[in-house]
């Protein structure tokens, strides 16, 4: 499996990463090498094998639906890059009237 520069740019966009042009070249080559190596998996026939998602092979543990956390908003927002009036600030998302 060889990736093109276009593939790498698309993957970077999906992962919300910016790549400079020289990195696109480097990653195109390195990711292709890694994916080619990963294809060794196809040597093994896995027809009728169930996937193994968790080493304990257990389902999710349940607990009573009770409040277990107390409000720590102030502590969490103390380390946030930008907050105002208890809200996390991000650049404007919805187009408004200027």
């Amino acid at each position: 499996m060889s990736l093109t520069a276009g593939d790498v740019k698309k993957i970077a966009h999906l992962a919300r990463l910016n790549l400079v042009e020289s990195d696109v070249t480097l990653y195109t080559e390195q990711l292709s090498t890694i994916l080619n190596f990963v294809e060794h998996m196809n040597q093994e026939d896995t027809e009728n094998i169930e996937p193994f998602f968790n080493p304990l092979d257990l389902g999710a543990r349940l607990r009573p639906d009770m409040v277990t956390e107390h409000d720590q908003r102030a502590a969490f927002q103390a380390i946030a890059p930008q907050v105002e009036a208890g809200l996390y600030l991000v650049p404007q998302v919805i187009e408004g009237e200027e």
Partner: protein
Amino acid sequence: MFTKSIAELSQALQTKKISSHELTQMYLERIKQFDKKLNSFITVTEEHALQAAKKADVQLAIGNANILTGIPVAQKDIFCTQGVKTSCGSKMLDNFISPYDATVIKRFNAAGMVMLGKTNMDEFAMGSSNENSYYGPVKNPWNLEYVPGGSSGGSAAAVAANLAPAATGTDTGGSIRQPAAFCGISGIKPTYGRVSRYGMIAFASSLDQGGLFAKSAEDLALLLNVIAGFDENDSTSATIAAPYYATTLNNSLKGLRIGLPKEFFNEALDKDIANAIQAAVKVYEKLGATIHEISLPRTSLSIPAYYVIAPAECSSNLARFDGVRYGHRCDAPKDLEDLYKRSRSEGFGKEVTRRIMIGTYALSAGYFDAYYLKAQKIRRLVAQDFHEAFKSVDVILGPTTPSPAFKLGEKTSDPLSMYLSDIYTIAVNLAGLPGMSIPAGFTAGLPIGMQLIGNAFGEAKLLNIAHGYQKETDWHTKTPEGF
């Protein structure tokens, strides 16, 4: 004092030969004196440590201490520590002061142990050499031109150089066992689910497992009881109770069935390492163990499967770093997408970026079945191979790594060659089994690690087997020159 075992340090504290304050002071001095050479700590928490030591001394004075009260420990900088920078080796979290303690940290605190600081590591635990840290590489104390291994390289180097009597690590594909081998110390990666992952910054959640470094299996046994056990805050925490590991350390190894996987002993294995492992096998035979050749036929497939599963889970876990709630945020973002993209690209290093992209690709529409699902099916086969093997043996023994520590810079330009150095450790994580690495010799001045792999929740047996070897040999007592 700094070459003493944890049991000996405990004895000295309990009999008031030394105070925890003095002991802590001594290690802090050693860090000041030697860590310029090694770079094994990202943050030294001197003030915290001395305060905790004073508290421990009070408990010791009033006779309210347990066996580990007052013993210093270094924490890998992947464990959240309240009020202390928790960077995970990344620029992304360079400004992150954790608002809470990981369960592992809480348990060390509850045991009265003293945190010396936070140790250096590969960024987000991705790496096998500790060269992927935002805070610079860690040096191997046995030879400063060599890597200490990774990702828990700072913890391993600090313990090897006696800058701390013990340290925590995490192991997703070998990140405790490989640095333990490269630095000539003992390390244990417990069974998946044995140690809580709560507050341990996630890399690949179905593989990550916290564990420990120390100078001997005996020390590890005492420490493991601090952190092993159920935690309701970790959704995959095992409910099985942890035994008291020190009780069974001295059990006889007569009749022990040791399996040697033939796939671990091929031409890729360094000759001196092969010889050291054979010599260790002789020690076990002398102790009454029987040796059996076994097969783990999917060993070579474990690396490709791992390098799909781990990046896939990493791409999902690291999606949380968005420049909004905590961590690095780019300057003057022009819109939300720019905020995400620049914050992430500026915050993550090359290896992390590589793995996020591999994982994003493997999980993207049209490729999921060919990569992620295929890898999870291989994973079941890898686990079944171990399951088969444990029908006829009690423990699996082999080398931890195919070669000793490599030179700084030797593998940085070729990620795949770095990945291949984890050939003997990765399958253990895929299967979720416990593994240890203990020192078994030297080659050209660099330590050799022997790996012991146990059945699920068989930590007590592993520690017993490792301790049996350490009673007969002195590799684990060696200290690098100049420290």
